[in-house]
């Protein structure tokens, strides 16, 4: 065997190994994610209700599910409502999280540790428990919030906070943002501790004031973290389901429908699975549209 032959064999082995190593995860992903997504897409082009379930197969209807959804005025209202709701929650949770993280850098260690502990407790609380607690805070009959307001000398009657959708969505959104706060705060705080101290010192020696240091050094260095957190928050908040569902007693009225609730009601409430699948696909498309900008930014940063 010549030396050139040996080299070729080695190179070929090197080319196969990476694929072999990644194959199990690719296969697992294909089975767990690929198949359901394929079914979802094929379902969205079918009429698939109770009759089709029993017959064992759906009827291909082309784009008519999508046509029906797009021509439904309710859909556009729901989409707009979902986007506004998502934007509000993302803005509040990122701003609050960022503010807390920047505070934490300069906090007394004891206070910082306490805050950390509280954040982790919030994080560790099962979602169902925390939503139920929040729900009790604002319940009609036994609301502790109403009692507290009254203890300051006001005379507020028992109040249903969910009749007014603005107040209802504010409470639900606050609960979502509250749950997201620990992850956001701790991530930003971790990133902040990685900003090199000498860089800040150098800037200070060059005569930069604290505001300039913050704007020109700290924020640019944190940008990637912020972009990731904003993208993730958009994805999470866009799909919020259980909060609305539990706050409103598993029977949200039409004015509380978001995309996720709408898809669920169509699929499982009305047994229109084809329709539900189409709505889910539209949700995915909308999400890609909204997060696309951030994802592109992130990829660019990866290239640099």
């Amino acid at each position, binding site marked *: 065997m010549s030396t050139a032959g040996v080299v070729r064999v080695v190179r070929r082995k090197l080319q196969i190994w990476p694929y072999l190593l990644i194959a199990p995860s690719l296969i697992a992903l294909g089975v767990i994610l690929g*198949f*359901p*997504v394929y*079914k*979802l897409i094929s*379902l969205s082009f079918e009429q698939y209700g*109770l*009759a089709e*379930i*029993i017959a*064992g197969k759906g009827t291909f209807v082309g784009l008519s599910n999508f046509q029906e959804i797009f021509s439904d005025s309710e859909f556009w209202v729901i989409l707009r409502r979902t986007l506004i709701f998502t934007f509000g929650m993302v803005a509040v949770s990122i701003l609050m999280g960022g503010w807390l993280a920047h505070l934490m850098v300069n906090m007394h260690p004891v206070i910082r540790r306490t805050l950390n502990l509280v954040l982790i407790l919030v994080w560790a609380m099962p*979602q*169902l428990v925390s939503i*139920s607690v929040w729900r009790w805070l604002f319940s*009609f*009959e036994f609301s502790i919030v109403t009692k507290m307001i009254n203890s300051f000398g006001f005379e507020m*009657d*028992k109040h*249903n906070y*969910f*009749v007014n959708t603005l107040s209802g969505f504010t409470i639900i959104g606050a609960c979502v943002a509250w749950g997201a706060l620990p992850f956001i705060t701790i991530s930003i705080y971790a990133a902040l501790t990685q900003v090199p101290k000498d860089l800040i010192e150098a800037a200070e020696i060059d005569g930069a004031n604290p505001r300039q240091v913050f704007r020109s050094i700290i924020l640019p260095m944190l940008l990637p973290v912020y972009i990731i957190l904003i993208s993730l928050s958009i994805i999470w908040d866009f*799909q919020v*389901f*259980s909060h609305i*569902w*539990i706050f409103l*007693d*598993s*029977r949200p*009225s*039409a004015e509380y429908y978001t995309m*996720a609730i709408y*898809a*669920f*009601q169509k*699929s*499982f*409430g*009305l*047994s229109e*699975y084809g329709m*539900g*699948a189409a*709505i*889910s696909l539209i*949700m995915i498309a909308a999400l890609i549209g909204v997060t696309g900008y951030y994802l592109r930014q992130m990829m660019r940063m990866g290239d640099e």
Partner: protein
Amino acid sequence: MEACMRPLRAKSIAAISVAALVGAVAFTGSSVAQAATQKSITVWLMPDAKDFGTALADANAAFAAAYPNTKVNVEFQTWSDHLKKLDAALVAKKGPDVVEFGNTEVMKYSAAGALADLSSYKPTFGNSATWLKALEDAGSYNGKLFAVPYYAGARAIMYRPSLFKAQGISVPKSYADFLSAGKKLMTAYGTDKDFSAVYLPGKYWYAAMSFVYDEGGAIATKSGGKWVGSLDSDASIRGLNRFKEVSDLLSRADKSGTEAAQWDVFNGGKVAMSYSNGWESCCIPKVGADWAFFPMPSVKAGKASPAFLGGSNLAVPSYVSNKKLAATWIRYYTNATQMKTIALSGAIPNNTKMLNLISGPAAPVAAAAKNSWFVPGAVKWVDVENANTLQTMLSDIATGKKTVAKAAADASAEITKLLN
């Protein structure tokens, strides 16, 4: 959903939430593992069965004695997601052999051909000649029996005798009596802002529709093969006006709320009357023994207002290969012996013969089952429930967001649209 179900438990809500998005596709993948029908049968029941004394255990023991080679697996489901799981089983064509349905849920499945025709077994079921009509109707479609009546629940007015006595009020015999009793209680105790003479949440449609049916109105009627919403008829509007009257004058319940936890409020001691299920008396420890029932009085003096008859039916899915065996299990579980146990536990049995077995304070609730109303027998009725049409209409009326006439007309139009 079905009337006598217990409140949603946290777990079931969690199950729904998990299904939120992936759920749209998840059902294609899930299947219910199960052994051959001959060796075992699987029964899906609701947790309510746990409150029926020894009925289930006795039925299984008797079944095991007759079919020693067949194992019975009882799996308890939750009201919020049992139909979703059933849809998955229907896709996979394997799953439970016997399924419990709420009586408002079953029609859609009978009509779609999802259930086995049990007509030929009907004479073998206990008391099938005296089944409660509302339950039998709920389980039938096109003259065929698809789901066997199991048990029922009805509502009556639960009240505090001590408050009635203190104000010298006797049990109301007519709607006029009821209203004046309520006003008297409001005058006596109403200075407490939390007090309600009649606790009537704005979205409590079972209560509101009892007023409607008492006046001779209806949710929808069938004419010429088409369903037409009839909440805007004169009779229905009279009933809705009564609902508004009680809500305005006698209730301080949430005008936009549901009845989901009304016994908790009753338990708080600031409610004189509520339109309650028989079992709600279980859950009011603070009130102690100071409770009793009377049937909701009608506008016609001396008569009771029709009560909504909720309940459950048992059915066999169409994919089951040994339908006879499944039907036999249903026969063991709904025979006279078991029904008697169920009746003695306080639930309403599936036949009129045993209604008088319920004695004591809950007897008026059983009596209420004799004069009942039921949701329109339309295949798509479940869609109206899921769209919250009635709840939305009622809270619009109770809060004053819409006039009675306008809210009723809107709801009626929506019901017509949804049912056809």
